[in-house]
């Protein structure tokens, strides 16, 4: 079996595209962890539900794909708000019950989706049809669109956090909870905002992921793991870290799978997490 330059180029593009979905899921996780000091164990399921919402709308009901993604963002954000209000907020600080409840919630969401949708392979329609050639390699347009969407959303989030009053308030809350409280910032508003935003981004991640592989109710578990890996690589709470970490992880996985088989691609994140935790616990861009 020969590996051609075409394969490598294809594999890099696929890796970047996967990286894009990792970024979208990782951003929510890292921001929620930063501001609420909790790991959202059901975040992978939020991502999965985002993808299934797009499927429900666009494939089963013929809604325009992009409109479906926007509707999915909104409904997933609302789901996030409800989760925050009824589960995350009341259980803040009670670690054990929190872990049990969110893990249980993941199972419930998975089962609900499994029972709601019929069996059989489910895929989302192409984001953008056709392909083009770069340096002798054919690249499907939808992959490029997916990468661009992921990076664009990240940029918007970054600008929001840097330039707007509520964005600065969120950043401040992550850096010093009491300091933020003493500026009159309502921590509940911050938690609600961060979970809503993180969930909406995860929904887009699900839609992009669904354009690469088939949807299934358990897709969130793996995505959650990637999100965690990306936080460890990039550094907690760092947006540039999430971007670099996500793209790095996506491309490395994809290339390793190409050269050494799919198993290596699966092992890599675990190896990276361990290596970073030992040699650089604050990640590439994290502080302290």
């Amino acid at each position, binding site marked *: 079996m020969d590996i051609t330059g075409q394969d490598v180029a294809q594999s890099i593009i696929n890796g970047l595209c996967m990286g894009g979905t990792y970024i979208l899921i990782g951003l929510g996780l890292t921001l929620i962890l930063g501001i609420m000091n909790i790991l959202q164990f059901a975040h992978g399921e939020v991502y999965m539900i985002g993808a299934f919402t797009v499927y429900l709308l666009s494939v089963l009901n013929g809604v325009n794909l992009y409109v479906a993604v926007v509707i999915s963002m909104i409904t997933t954000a609302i789901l996030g708000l409800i989760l925050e209000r009824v589960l995350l907020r009341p259980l803040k600080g009670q670690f054990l019950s929190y872990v049990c409840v969110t893990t249980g919630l993941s199972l419930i969401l998975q089962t609900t989706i499994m029972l709601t949708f019929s069996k059989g392979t489910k895929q989302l329609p192409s984001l953008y049809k056709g392909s083009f050639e770069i340096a002798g390699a054919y690249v499907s347009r939808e992959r490029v669109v997916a990468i661009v969407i992921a990076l664009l959303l990240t940029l918007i989030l970054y600008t929001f956090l840097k330039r707007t009053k509520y964005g600065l308030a969120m950043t401040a809350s992550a850096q010093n909870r009491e300091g933020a409280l*003493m500026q009159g910032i309502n921590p509940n508003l911050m938690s609600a905002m961060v979970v809503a935003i993180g969930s909406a981004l995860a929904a887009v991640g699900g839609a992009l992921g669904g354009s690469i592989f088939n949807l299934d109710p358990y897709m969130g578990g793996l995505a959650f793991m990637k999100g965690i890996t990306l936080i460890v690589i990039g550094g907690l709470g760092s947006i540039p870290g999430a971007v670099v970490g996500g793209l790095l992880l996506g491309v490395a996985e994809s290339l390793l799978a190409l050269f050494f088989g799919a198993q290596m691609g699966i092992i890599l994140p675990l190896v990276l997490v361990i290596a970073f935790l030992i040699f650089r616990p604050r990640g590439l861009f994290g502080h302290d």
Partner: protein
Amino acid sequence: MLLEIKDLAVRYGGAEVLRGVSVEVEEGSVVTLLGGNGAGKSTTLRAITGLVPIASGEIWFDGRRIDGLAPQKIVELGVRHVLEGRALFPYMTVLENLKVGAYLQKDRGKTAQMLKDIFVHFPRLEERQGQQARTLSGGEQQMLTIARALVGGPRLLLLDEPSLGLAPLLIREISKIVRNIHERGVTVLLVEQNTRLALDVADRCYVLETGNIVACGLTQELIESDLVRKAYLGA
């Protein structure tokens, strides 16, 4: 009275760290709360801004009972608390820290005016506005945390040991700043271990010892009383 604490008790777990603490702060005055390590000074301030739950007693601000309110609500009423240890946003710039200080101000024009005004009083901060807060010197950080509170336009400013860790020259600077704040019409409740600084700026003074108020009165009277002289002025 702008602030009235009546018979306040606070417990951490089983330990009662404040009992029967009553403090009155008149509008427009500078009041200081003196006491050694672990006397309960920070706890008193934290009870005022709702950062610790109170076991009994009442706290009134401007004719409203505020104990039991969420911290951000108390801040909204016009109370600003400069926390012990500064509580800056270390990876945000000086300017961003100040902007967050103006979070409650809805009018952008007023915020801009407030920032200008602050920079007139703290030119050092203007020079360093683009620098991350963690890279400031201790004195500059203390200025920033006070400036951040002032940007919020408080009626009552709670200062928790602003002199902590500062060189004598900077401590004098802090006392100048406190007087300046007072002249702008802001009421100040100052917690200090640095007795000279406190007595230098305060109209009234309370002395806290292991959770009890053991002395209070006009600063002048207390300076003349044996208790404070012996315990806190080393004379």
